[in-house]
């Protein structure tokens, strides 16, 4: 309760929480408010916003309802952001814990692999991966996670290094617990908070990466995403600017919301933020 109270102390955190709550409501309400396929053709093409009551935000190049796409896009954008971040954090935490806890050769090998991933620009990696495997939602998520797990791995390793010499770990060793068990039951949970502090950065980056991939024509064509909407709207940027501005605003607000809320959480748990 106290923590919640602390969270709501800064206006930024409140704003972030509000945006995220709105987003979640949009995502949940999408199938109720706009049942059926959001990519179905609903009216004349390129209808401007506020022209027709049933299509309040207008239509795109094929006559699809922009508002319906926006709501359904919230679902995919959130799904991409959260899943990719979860995957990156999971992989990163496991690799980091293993490296930090095992030390020696395993540490050396795992960290060189981490280095290798970090020296290749993550967007380039995502681009190559998606072009090769073919764009679908799962592949896009995997591609984003592939470039994002190294940060959490490093933080986890550093944290594990400082934890592994502590008393309760030594105690666990004495009572004969299996090293893997110690690593994942005793050490990992304690190393997690600073790793989780990275999640807002990763979620935001994931949403932006998805948009950039869509821009290069590497989004999932069967799903509506905001990035895909912006990418499609850009060819008519001058003629129908609303097509890229509407999802653009949604995207900016979301990334902002994720950041602000994330920061609020970090500050309220008093965990020092570490970007690296």
């Amino acid at each position: 309760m106290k923590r919640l109270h602390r969270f709501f102390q800064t206006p930024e955190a409140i704003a972030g929480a509000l945006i995220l709550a709105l987003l979640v409501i949009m995502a949940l309400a999408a199938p109720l408010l706009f049942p059926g396929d959001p990519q179905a053709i609903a009216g004349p093409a390129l209808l401007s916003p506020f022209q027709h009551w049933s299509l309040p935000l207008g239509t795109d190049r094929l006559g699809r309802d922009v508002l319906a796409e926006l709501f359904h896009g919230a679902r995919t954008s959130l799904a991409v952001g959260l899943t990719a971040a979860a995957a990156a954090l999971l992989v990163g935490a496991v690799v980091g814990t293993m490296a930090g806890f095992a030390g020696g050769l395993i540490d050396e090998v795992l960290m060189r692999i981490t280095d290798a991933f970090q020296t290749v620009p993550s967007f380039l990696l995502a681009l190559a991966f998606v072009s090769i495997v073919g764009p679908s939602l799962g592949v896009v998520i995997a591609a984003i996670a592939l470039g994002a797990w190294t940060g959490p791995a490093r933080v986890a390793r550093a944290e594990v290094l400082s934890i592994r010499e502590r008393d309760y770990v030594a105690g666990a060793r004495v009572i004969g617990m299996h090293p893997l068990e110690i690593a994942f039951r005793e050490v990992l949970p304690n190393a997690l908070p600073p790793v989780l502090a990275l999640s807002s950065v990763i979620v935001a980056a994931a949403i932006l990466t998805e948009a950039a991939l869509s821009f290069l024509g590497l989004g999932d064509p069967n799903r509506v995403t905001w990035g895909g909407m912006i990418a499609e709207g850009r060819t008519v940027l001058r003629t129908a600017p609303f097509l890229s501005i509407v999802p653009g605003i949604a995207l900016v607000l979301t990334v902002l919301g994720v950041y602000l809320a994330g920061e609020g959480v970090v500050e309220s748990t008093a965990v020092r933020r570490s970007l690296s």
Partner: protein
Amino acid sequence: MSGLTISRRGLLAGSALLLASTALPAIGRAQTPKKGGRLIVAADSEPRNLNPAIVASNDVFFISSKVVETLAEASFDGKDGLQPRLARSWEGAADGRSVTFKLRDGVKWHDGKPFTSADVAFSALQVWKPLQNLGRTVFKDLEAVDTPDELTAVFKFAKPTPFQLIRNALPALSSVVPKHIYEVGKIEDNPANNAPVGTGPFKFAEYKAGQYYRLVRNDAYWGKDEPYLDEIVYQVLPDRTSAAAALEAEEIQLAAFSAVPLADLDRISKVPGLKVITKGYEGLTYQLVVEINHRRKELADLKVRQAIAHAIDKDFVVKTIFLGYAATATGPVPKHDPQFYTADVPTYPFDVAKANELLDEAGYKRADDGKRFALKLLPAPYFNETKQFGDYLRQALAAIGIDAQIVNNDSAAHMKAVYTDHAFDLAVGPPVFRGDPAISTTILVQSGIPDGVPFSNQGGYKNPELDALIAKASETLDTAARTELYKEFQKKVAADLPLINVAEWSFISVARDTVGNIANNPRWAVSNWADTYLAG
């Protein structure tokens, strides 16, 4: 002037005709062609091999056709739709075994050596026949090229070859390259493939990867007073939206091949100083086609294919996806083709109820979720419009209970998936009609083509009757009889639907008002631009 069909169909028909008139030299505005100046043009792709004798494709021609010339070029009003270039006349023998070309006198290569019949013989036998993507089919029976004198080349064929086909192939397939440069070493490795040498009005000057190609005036060109321009520069603009911006910012003067997105044309036509031109692509018709994998049991059923044809609203496609800059298709030959087209074929008007009925009859009833079966749909990635049509087709199929999942691939992966691995149910393809069905159209439905050949029948369709018809037409010498056979071909294709022809489109150019003599032949964008000029 059947060439105007497409522009008349355009939404901007009124303004298009008005603009078209400025493009015709005879009735043009009171602008006199002016000498000099640099024309800057948008290029959205960077072909690596610039030898049009090996790679006969439009993105290569766009640049190389100014440097390397063909024997003849397409024409709005010339005999058989042709005008002479390096050949002054051509004559086919009655037995279909030889064609005689009389060549232009006094033509010099860019390096000063004279152009002779030996160059034509070399190009035909050493390049077109063994190496060229299209020539390998059309010139497959070419046996020898006799050169009785320096200005006569006689093509000898092992089997009777229709003169009509050779004639129709001239504009795209007959780029002549210099023998003295190509006879040294392997033709494929020749440096001139990247820096072409020809007889054309412009010489190749330089290529900066990722930036530009530059051509300069050939002072020794055979055309009187030609060329007008001093330089042509192709600025590489990879992003689809930048051509429009570059035109408005006056950084380029011409964007061809619909480099300006169709949806932007309405706005850009109102920008002072810019004109939208729908002419000049009549000989470069692209067809929007639904390719069908007949290995799928459902799709092997004619009723299902008919249902799909009925489910597509071709008018919507033309109006919304192509914004009117296209025409609905009835079969494998485009409507405006002056030689072969027939409208007398079975048609499939947009009728969802009928489509549903056909599917019910075929035994594919809707399940409880309203779906009959699922399909994998692969739209070709080369054009915005093919991708958009993919999105539309998915919706159109949903209306008749077919659940299509779109698979987006990049070019290489699409190529492999459709033409080699056959890992598709439906695909959206943009084949090109090149003036004669035998050049690149019959191959779309003919059986027995090995795996991996792009833009060919890879859907496993096999129809012995149709194959026999295609074989017969390919050796019929009489023009009228041959044309009749291809009309029969269109009927059979429309009836049996090995693929579904949806629309035919060509491209739009946007240029500054100062650019003159645009679009004065049916393949203008890929012709030599010798008479193009910059006013004021």
